[in-house]
């Protein structure tokens, strides 16, 4: 594999992470990360859909008239999402019930349409497939991190295996209820973005507004 393809594959993982840098696909990152198992299945589904949709859209990019390109992209993505959902229902029934609507909602995940429109429409099939896989991996890295933290701190377990003995069962670990509700994912994603930007300082954005210090109110003269 030459360096160009390697770059295409690895760049979205840390340098241009779809969640951490572009802040796309956050909705599902909040919804499905309560346990690591659901996060993993979601990662698998999204990576598969993204790789396949990038490949398919890149393959027909020169045939599609510009006026209907978005509809064509969405049609392809939606079909792939249905296929992925059907596979989950057949082979991972219990998990697919927990994921409920969120697999179906991959069709509205901005990462998928974003990569189709910005990358697959302008690049070769091979590069587009690698870009899809890379972005899927970037999404997965964040989801797996968030899912691990939430399941560990929210239930003291990982993939259902009890690692920290619960206080309710004569152990010492008191689960953090906040970790079981979606907003906790905001804090963890925020923390991950902070860590990532401390490591890769080029990702730090220039502040668009200055912090205004309100003037101290003038004391009235009376």
């Amino acid at each position, binding site marked *: 594999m030459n360096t160009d393809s390697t770059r295409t594959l690895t760049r979205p993982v840390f340098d241009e992470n779809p969640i951490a840098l572009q802040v796309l696909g956050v909705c599902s990152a909040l919804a499905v990360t309560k346990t690591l198992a659901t996060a993993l299945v979601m990662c698998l589904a999204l990576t598969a859909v993204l790789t396949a949709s990038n490949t398919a859209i890149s393959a027909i990019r*020169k045939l599609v*008239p510009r*006026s209907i390109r978005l509809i*064509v992209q969405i049609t*392809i993505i939606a*079909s792939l999402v249905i296929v992925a959902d059907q*596979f989950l229902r*057949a082979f991972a*029934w219990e998990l697919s019930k927990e994921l409920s609507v969120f697999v179906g909602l991959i069709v509205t995940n901005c990462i998928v349409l974003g990569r189709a429109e910005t990358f697959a429409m302008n690049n070769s099939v091979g590069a587009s497939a690698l870009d899809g896989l890379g972005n899927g991996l970037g999404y997965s890295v964040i989801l797996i991190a968030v899912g691990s933290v939430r399941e560990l701190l929210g239930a003291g377990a990982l993939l259902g295996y009890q690692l920290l003995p619960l206080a309710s069962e004569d152990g010492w670990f008191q689960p953090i209820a906040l970790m079981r509700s979606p907003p906790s994912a905001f804090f963890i994603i925020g923390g991950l973005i902070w860590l990532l930007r401390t490591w890769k300082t080029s990702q730090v954005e220039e502040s668009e507004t200055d912090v205004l210090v309100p003037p101290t109110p003038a004391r009235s003269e009376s």
Partner: protein
Amino acid sequence: MASPTEENPARTLLVAFVVCAVCSVVVSATAVFLEPRQRANREREREQQIQAIVARQPGLAELLEGLEGVSLEPHVVELATGELADHIDAATFDARRAANDPLLGVALPADRDPARIGRRSRFAVVYLIEAAGRIELVILPVHGSGYASTLYGYLALAGDTNTVAGLSFYEHGETPGLGSEIEEPYFLESWPGKLVRDEKGELRIGIALDEVDPDSPDAAYEVDGLTGATRTCSGVTQLLRYWLGEDGFAPFLERVRLKNEGGP
């Protein structure tokens, strides 16, 4: 882009048509190919639901274990007469398919279709637990329209056929977080002990519009409503009353009651 993508209507239509055709073939092929596995998953879930209903009944699991030859038996019932139709194999009878069969199914006129199901099978598969000649538990399949989908579930009645022993839903497509609450344990646990009919024989079972006042006369028959799921809840009420009514299992339940009271 390498080649200019021409904008002429015929070409645009052709591309759109080909994309749609290919996508629909891919989607339908996957659905058809995976259907047997998915059906097996649904069947397994249904079995588990029945087992769960049985497990929730106090004393019933012990009864099943303690007595020789006591088990959960499926039977086919002819709804109109309430008679057991044991010449039909309960293991293979598919009531959902039968509903659309010209011989096995019947169309329901709009004014006698409160559960809004359109057609139903003339036969249904019920599960009975019999011990020492008495029917201890009757599990009835029920279904009807909710808000966004058809709800499929099981209603279990105690041997008096007037006391709910349990309710559960194994398939629905209601709004997650609102209508989907009908499969949550806290909701299902509010059903056991509710009565189906009052002394006059009137069907009273259902879901209240809000919380049930424990002192009101309805408290014996109704459970608390679910916020944000009014139409799902009214669907559940309608489907329960339909399946417990004269067009549903009432003739069969009457036979069960007579048998348990030592009648013919």
